[in-house]
């Protein structure tokens, strides 16, 4: 009457498959996705606005999709860079999933887009578990969030292809211990590159676009230990 079935199914397998399909479809269209993760207040939008503007100046066809829990003015801000921007409200959902992203791109993503930046919902827990079909996953943290941030959010930092420290102009005021931050990043994600950026001082300008273009050109990105898990 009752029986036990040996299932052995990964719970997030459906999202992983949708992400792989999206990655393949976008690659066929010549589009590379960059997934940006951070806590709220990390300065992600300001940095992205700068990088979008630089990409446009360099003649790189770029678009951005920004996901928010509720109405915020991130999209208006990003639109100042004059690249196509779409804002998506997640209605309280704390992360984007691959099939949701695919739906949002349908009928919107301009043909010939080389780089698509996705500004994920602002938190470092939920979005970490969902592959969006990106080729480059970037985790950002500002100097004001402290050098322990990678140890507090090991899954997010552990799965990053690239880490960017933002607001470095405030490093001294925030008493930010850069060496400790780097050591903590290496502990959870050995070998990952850490970039320093400040929109105010101009530090690191264009480096995100450089890394995204390299990934788009097929340069192998960093392979995090955590992503090399036996599933």
């Amino acid at each position, binding site marked *: *009457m*009752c*029986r*036990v*079935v*040996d*299932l*052995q*199914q*990964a*719970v*997030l397998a*459906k*999202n992983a498959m949708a992400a792989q399909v999206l990655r393949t479809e976008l690659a066929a269209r010549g589009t590379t996705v960059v997934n940006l993760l951070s806590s709220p207040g990390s300065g992600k939008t300001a940095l992205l606005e700068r990088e979008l503007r630089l990409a446009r100046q360099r003649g790189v066809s770029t678009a951005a999709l920004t996901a928010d*829990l509720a109405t915020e003015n991130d999209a208006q801000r990003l639109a100042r860079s004059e690249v196509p921007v779409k804002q998506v409200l997640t209605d*309280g*959902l*704390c*992360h984007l*999933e691959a099939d949701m992203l695919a739906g949002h791109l349908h009928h919107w993503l301009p043909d010939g887009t080389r780089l698509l930046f996705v500004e994920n*919902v602002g*938190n*470092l*827990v*939920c979005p*970490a*578990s*969902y592959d969006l079909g990106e080729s480059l996953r970037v985790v950002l943290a500002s100097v004001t969030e402290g050098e322990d941030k*990678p*140890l*507090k*959010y*090991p*899954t*997010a930092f*552990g799965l990053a292809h690239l880490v960017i420290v933002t607001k470095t102009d405030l490093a001294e005021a925030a008493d930010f211990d850069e060496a400790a931050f780097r050591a*903590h990043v*290496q*502990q*959870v*994600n*050995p*070998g990952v590159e850490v970039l320093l950026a400040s929109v105010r001082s101009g530090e690191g300008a264009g480096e995100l676009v450089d890394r995204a273009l390299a990934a788009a050109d097929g340069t192998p990105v960093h392979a995090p*230990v*955590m992503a*090399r*898990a*036996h*599933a």
Partner: protein
Amino acid sequence: MGAGQTAAAQDGEAMHEMSVALAMIEQVEQAARADGAHGVTHVRLEIGELAGVVPEALAFCFELACAGTALEGAELITRTVPGTARCAGCRTTWEVGMPPQLLCPHCNDAAGDLVSGRELRICEVGLADAPPAARERTRASINEES
């Protein structure tokens, strides 16, 4: 439970355990349909320490989300899987702990791979012929008889 998840809970950040619960229910319902079963007695789940899921939050969401489905009343049995890494160079295997240490404690090289700790896997499902409500009635009548 991970330090990160704890910190996040304290920060009052949004949680994705409801999405995980819904994905689980969809998979289990599929397995039940394939089997011709109308009820689910239990679901056995492995949660890796580095899966980014809080077992307590998941249990809470699972119970809520099961209402009105073939899984209503199903027991969720979770097992936490510790993170384990292996050094490609010296072959040392170690428990990475939380927060994880992915540098080899022996030679300080990067771990070659994570042997365990990222699981979020349904291992086993208990199926029943009767829908959950009927099971309840059967159980109730057994109780009355005893």
